[in-house]
């Protein structure tokens, strides 16, 4: 159980949050002096320290709380996470509606420092705390005919301005193929930076699938269903030509409206340079899941 995967990213654990901020400011100052290239390059793939807590919690896509990047930080305070329950249903031996504490009781929570690549071509590195989804699914008892896992985000219209405005077709839903869900990289995160999950990042429990575009990593989950057929997913339903079911990070398959070949790491300031996007966001260990698939067609 758990610990099936080890970080290749390093976290300078001893570095207090204040120093992360300083580092960012130094990079920005470097940029102002025309040393932007150096600052950006230094932050490239080889030494991806996590983004600062401030960066991770102030630049979010969580359309239930607004479409602007800073809207979730402003509005997500209203999210009611008390008495949170998660319904596990469908093709499982132990269906039910579980209080969150009960759902994860006794399972190993570990730190995973993952790159996060948004479909909008920006990226971050986040130190999550979470539980392998496999552990939760094993306990639910996945039946042999289950082939996909479907997830659903909470809908609290009174607390969610984006839901009231109908920005998307809510509730937000996502899905994974069972083998993707069972992969040791796939976690249900309950915190970051050793703190309970901030509301704007998907409190109290969210999915993190680091080799897929960020929109697959559904936030504030209230339902996990084991199903036989590929479940509908929110962005795919809205624009099937732009957002596929798989949504694996792939620099060779462009979004129709922008290139996916490069990305900008958040935190480099006004002169930060772009860096190359890696296949599967650098998580090559998942490549075997997609052997024989045409990734341009099943994007």
């Amino acid at each position, binding site marked *: 159980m758990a610990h099936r995967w080890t970080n290749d990213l390093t976290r300078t654990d001893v570095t207090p949050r204040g120093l992360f901020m300083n580092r960012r400011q130094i990079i920005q100052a470097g940029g*102002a002096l025309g040393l932007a290239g150096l600052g950006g390059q230094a932050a490239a793939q080889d030494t991806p320290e996590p983004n600062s807590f401030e*960066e991770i919690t*102030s630049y979010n896509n969580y359309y239930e709380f607004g479409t602007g990047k800073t809207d979730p930080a402003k509005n997500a305070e209203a999210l009611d996470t008390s008495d949170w329950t998660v319904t596990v249903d469908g093709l499982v031996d132990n269906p039910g509606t579980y209080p969150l504490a009960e759902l994860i009781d006794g399972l190993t929570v570990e730190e995973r420092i993952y790159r996060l690549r948004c479909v909008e071509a920006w990226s971050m590195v986040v130190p999550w705390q979470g539980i392998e989804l496999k552990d939760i699914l094993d306990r639910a008892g996945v039946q042999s005919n289950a082939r996909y896992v479907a997830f659903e985000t909470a809908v609290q219209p009174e607390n969610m301005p984006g839901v009231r*405005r109908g*920005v*998307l077709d809510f509730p937000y839903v996502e899905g994974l193929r069972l083998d993707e869900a069972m992969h040791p990289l796939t976690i249900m995160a309950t915190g970051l930076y050793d703190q309970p999950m901030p509301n704007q990042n998907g409190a109290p429990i969210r999915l993190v699938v680091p080799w897929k575009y960020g929109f697959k990593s559904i936030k504030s989950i209230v339902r996990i269903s084991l199903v036989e057929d590929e479940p509908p997913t929110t962005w795919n339903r809205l624009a099937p030509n732009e957002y596929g079911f798989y949504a694996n990070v792939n620099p060779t398959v462009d979004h129709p*409206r922008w*290139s996916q070949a490069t990305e900008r790491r958040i*935190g480099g300031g*006004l002169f930060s340079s772009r860096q190359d996007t890696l296949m599967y966001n650098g998580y090559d260990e998942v490549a075997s899941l997609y052997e024989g698939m045409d990734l341009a067609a099943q994007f």
Partner: protein
Amino acid sequence: MARPLTTAQKINGALRRVPAWPLYVLGALWAAFLFWQALTGRLGVEPINALEREYGDTALKLLVAGLAVTPLLRYTRVSLLKFRRAIGLLTFFFVLAHFLVWALLDVQSFGRVWADILKRPYVTVGMIAFLGLIPLALTSNNLSIRRLGRSWRRLHQLVYGIAILGAVHYIWLAKGFQIEPLVYLGLILGLLAARIRWARFFADRTVRA
């Protein structure tokens, strides 16, 4: 006996004493202020995209302001005509700033800029609007007005199409259902409709039919 002045006449009288040049100063200060905010982290942790949007947003607001001048005169008799050149030139200035942030700070390579213009419809549309503004900016001076005569007016009617392209550019890049880009398109179409002399428009039709 002279008739008492209307409110519009009073406003116009007051505006006569206000020069147009401070608008250029305000525009330049606003652009510099936004840049400073982006540079110092005051536009959030991803300042490139934020600055790009701020400049684009200002340009759209100026476009709307410029298109409002004629309907305002027609329906309220308040004349802002003397400020229209400054509004137009500032529109171009902010579109140029928007373009430069996109090309130099965001995309960062000529090859990719070119590829995006060809491949991404919303970039293509924005680029056409930007190119269309160049001749308008170059002829926004008294000499050009004299030299071009009647064709100056026709040339500057290009801005109607450019404004629509600007709004379409914004709508096209939004994800999901967003209100703000649609508000801009609505405002622009509304202001264009307000310029049409509907009575004459329909009269002409009837005569021809």
